[in-house]
């Protein structure tokens, strides 16, 4: 009988009654064949592997992370709250010691959801990993966390949420943004002024195969993780680098994913994208499950795999080698941000955000207090074609008392003076969460 070397909890929630629209890639059928494969393999009978029901995130869990406009209930559906709750359950399994590792096989994904949410972009409305991480920080005290995003698309939402957080290391491997949505994720994007080198982007050329991915994990990701020494390693496990994925152009195999997971050795994996639902997902998910449990995944070979067709070119190998040589310094010796604007004691950024799924254009002015004692509090002024000028203020985990107080004062000031349709305060220091305007 098989026995897992690491005990593993699988939060499997395929949401068989929910779709973005009937023929959308994010539809009922997405995890159907994955379920068939896992059932047929008898995965849940393996000693040490258990299937677990998700939690349901509540509005407070969302509003600990996101500024939501006009309100959380209008930008999420129940399925979003279940997906986020699935990730929370995975973290709970690991942190309580009930399981060595956990895999949240949930949908819809979340890694394109940014700090401010006006609607759905890249199939994501709220960020499952961020909601999980902040839940963990609030309830279990763990603070130093690494997120390695192996989805084929740049994890721009997670990057945005943790841009200024020096305690969360975010590493994204993805198909080069010049060739794929969302068009970002270049090495120059390497974290805000107070968290320089805590965001690492690794854009890979189209048709990169197992060899390139594993090289990046071994030569870039592993050394950075070993230095950062996080309390938890989280894998945003998108499965669209697979050679059969219909909307991307990479050449990774199920066994490649298994090996990647083995090298990365995450405590928690959360499913992100991946829409080759018959040719890839059943096999990639099985390989990840087996790898996380410390079992042999070498037999997980896709029926239509032709090794010659997925082998990456020498040119790609050379390019990836060069990247591997250059990228580690972004973490170990990050360059200063030359594009930075500093006004009246605040770092200021202007951002334009497009929500492809909902066709929303958002404009943000972001102010980060330049505090000498802490990473500073955040003030976000945002408007879109759906929501009039609104305000979000956050005093994140780890800011000083003065910053937390100033954040609160500015929130009260906004209520008195008006000018904002909606305003939301996230005060993690004093655990005060408020919103006004509805």
């Amino acid at each position: 009988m098989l026995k897992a070397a690491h005990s593993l909890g699988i939060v499997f929630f395929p949401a068989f009654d929910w779709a973005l629209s009937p023929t959308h890639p994010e539809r009922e059928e997405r995890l159907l064949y994955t379920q068939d494969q896992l059932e047929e393999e008898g995965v849940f009978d393996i000693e040490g592997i258990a299937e677990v029901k998700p939690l349901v995130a509540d509005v407070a869990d969302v509003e600990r992370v996101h500024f939501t406009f006009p309100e959380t209930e209008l930008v999420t559906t129940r399925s979003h709250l279940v997906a986020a709750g699935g990730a929370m359950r995975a973290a709970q399994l690991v942190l309580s010691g009930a399981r060595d590792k956990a895999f949240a096989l949930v949908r819809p994904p979340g890694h394109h959801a940014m700090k401010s949410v006006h609607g759905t972009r890249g199939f994501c409305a709220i960020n499952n990993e961020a909601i999980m991480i902040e839940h963990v920080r609030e309830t279990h005290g763990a603070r130093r966390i690494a997120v390695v995003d192996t989805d084929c698309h740049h994890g721009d939402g997670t990057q945005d949420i943790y841009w200024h957080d020096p305690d969360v290391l975010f590493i994204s491997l993805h198909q080069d943004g010049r060739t794929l949505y969302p068009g970002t994720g270049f090495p120059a994007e390497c974290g805000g002024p107070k968290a320089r080198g805590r965001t690492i982007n690794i854009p890979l050329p189209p048709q990169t195969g197992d060899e390139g991915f594993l090289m990046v994990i071994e030569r870039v990701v592993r050394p950075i993780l070993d230095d950062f020494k996080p309390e938890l390693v989280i894998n945003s496990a998108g499965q669209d680098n697979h050679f059969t994925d219909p909307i991307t152009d990479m050449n990774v195999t199920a066994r490649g994913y298994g090996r990647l997971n083995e090298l990365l050795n995450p405590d928690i994996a959360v499913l992100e994208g991946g829409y080759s639902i018959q040719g890839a997902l059943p096999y990639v998910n099985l390989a990840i499950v087996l790898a996380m449990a410390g079992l042999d995944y070498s037999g997980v070979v896709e029926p239509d795999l032709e090794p010659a067709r997925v082998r990456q070119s020498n040119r790609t190998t050379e390019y990836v080698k060069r990247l591997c040589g250059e990228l580690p310094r972004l973490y170990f010796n990050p360059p200063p941000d030359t594009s930075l604007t500093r006004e009246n004691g605040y770092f200021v950024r202007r951002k334009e955000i497009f929500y492809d799924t909902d066709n929303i254009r958002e404009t943000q002015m972001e102010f980060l207090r330049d505090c000498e004692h802490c990473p500073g509090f955040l003030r976000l002024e945002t408007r879109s074609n759906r929501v009039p000028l609104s305000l979000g203020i956050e005093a994140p985990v780890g800011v000083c008392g003065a910053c937390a107080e100033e954040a609160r004062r500015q929130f009260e000031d906004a209520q008195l003076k008006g000018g904002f349709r909606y305003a939301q305060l996230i005060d993690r220091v004093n655990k005060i969460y408020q919103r006004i305007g509805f």
Partner: protein
Amino acid sequence: MQWGMLLGIDVGGTHTDAVVIDESGIAASCKVPTEHGNLLASVESVIDCVCRQVPAAEIERLNLSTTLTTNAIVEGKTEEVGVLAVGGPGIDPTDFMLCRHFHALSGAIDHRGQLIRPMKESELAAAVAACRKDGIRAYAAVSKFSPRNPGMENRMAEVIGEAADVVTRGHALTGRLNFPRRLATAYFNSAIWRLFNDFADAVGKSLRRLGLSAARVNILKADGGTMPLSMAREMPVESILSGPAASIMGIISMCDIVHDSIILDIGGTTTDIAIFAKGAPLMEPDGIAIGSHPTLVRSLLTRSIGVGGDSALSVLAEEVRVGPQRPGPAMAAGGGHPTLIDACNHLGLAGHGDIARSRAGIERFAADHSLKPEELAQRAVDAAVGRIRDEVRAMVKEVNERPVYTIHELLEGRRIVPSKIYIMGGPAEVLKMPIFKAFSLSVSVPQSYAVANAVGAALTRTTRSVELFADTEQLRLHIPTLGVSRVIEPDYDLEAARRDAARSLLSFMRAEGVPSREENVEITQASSFNMVEGGRLVGRNIRVKCQIRPGILHRYKELLGRLC
């Protein structure tokens, strides 16, 4: 209206029970010790006994629950089986090697039932030749995803052909997925096939000799239903571990259970626990395990803990415990060590056997541990009832935490909240009050609990479940266990699938000579998924599961509640 009588026999580990039931209730009952090495003798002697109370010729049906196959497996008295397994992508089938003659063959079928790599005929021929050479006559043929495409299993059976007395094909046993369980189920089916069939022949002879040649014979299954002997001869594996189910069906036939309830069968050494949701017994999610081998044999959900009337008392670090050891009978029955029953005798809850011996035993044991006798006895009863309560709570929690796959079920799904407890078994009456106090729930002890198992066996109806799988892109429909595989139209839909599953099941049962009522057919799962390729709808993937649910024979419904 006059019906024939029903005979129910439960061959248990220690006793063999029999009852004869007519429309007025229990017409005869008997209990004989089980002769472990000769189950047929136990069956004959109990039939002999009831036939002294009622005319044999009026017995129209015999429902038999036996430990024959379970014992054979536990004791390793099974036949050598040649197992032919086709894996495909994923976990290596040799990880599930069940026996010496295990041959993994190459070839693969995918999750949609598409043939992705044909089986190698040369490997198949070599495997069969190797088994033949070793004199193997029983085979199991199993491929991954065979319920979606039985082609390979059928081909293996064809090639084995005359070399075998039995070939169990995985898909013929069940349409549910789980390759390792299907392998184990098919293996055990072949391993006990000959033993069961010999037993069936012998039972037939005995019945003729005892004047019951007119009686139809059914065999009890772990799911609480029966199967006709003809079906049992093909799938004897379904007869394993039917004992607890017989008792549970006994409670159903005696009491009109309508609420979420707990059933406790408290015996000498163990307590079996079952849960009812809205009056229907809960099933194991996948199937029962034989030893360390999980199978796909459908079964009622039961848990057994080592607490019973004869469980020994012990004191460890000032904690009074009950069970799981059972060094012998209670002191009241001449044993040497105080047990739960002795504690009950001491407290005046029970009046079993020699009460003075119980009292003396409890007093001596209490003195040995510097406890007052009343305190020891009370703490023992509390410990026993506490363990039962903890186990019941854990079980209910586990059921309520079972995974679900739709948002609707997750957010609006029903939770089990037990509101009533039914107790049967020897110490049932005695432990009624302590259990009432521990659970604060209404507790009932049916009158004829001592023969509940045999009553359950007698009155339970024939059950069967089928799974239908349709793919409107491939234009194919399969009902694996009924051997149905046919072409469908592109507009085939969920409604049609529900209807076809129910109709196929009913007509199969009627063809087997089992009158089955449409109202007892229950669709347990029905889903239809749009299959989309390149943003275009290409078909529907439809899955329906339906069953004739376990319950008591319709014409005895009037007995409900009268024996409770």
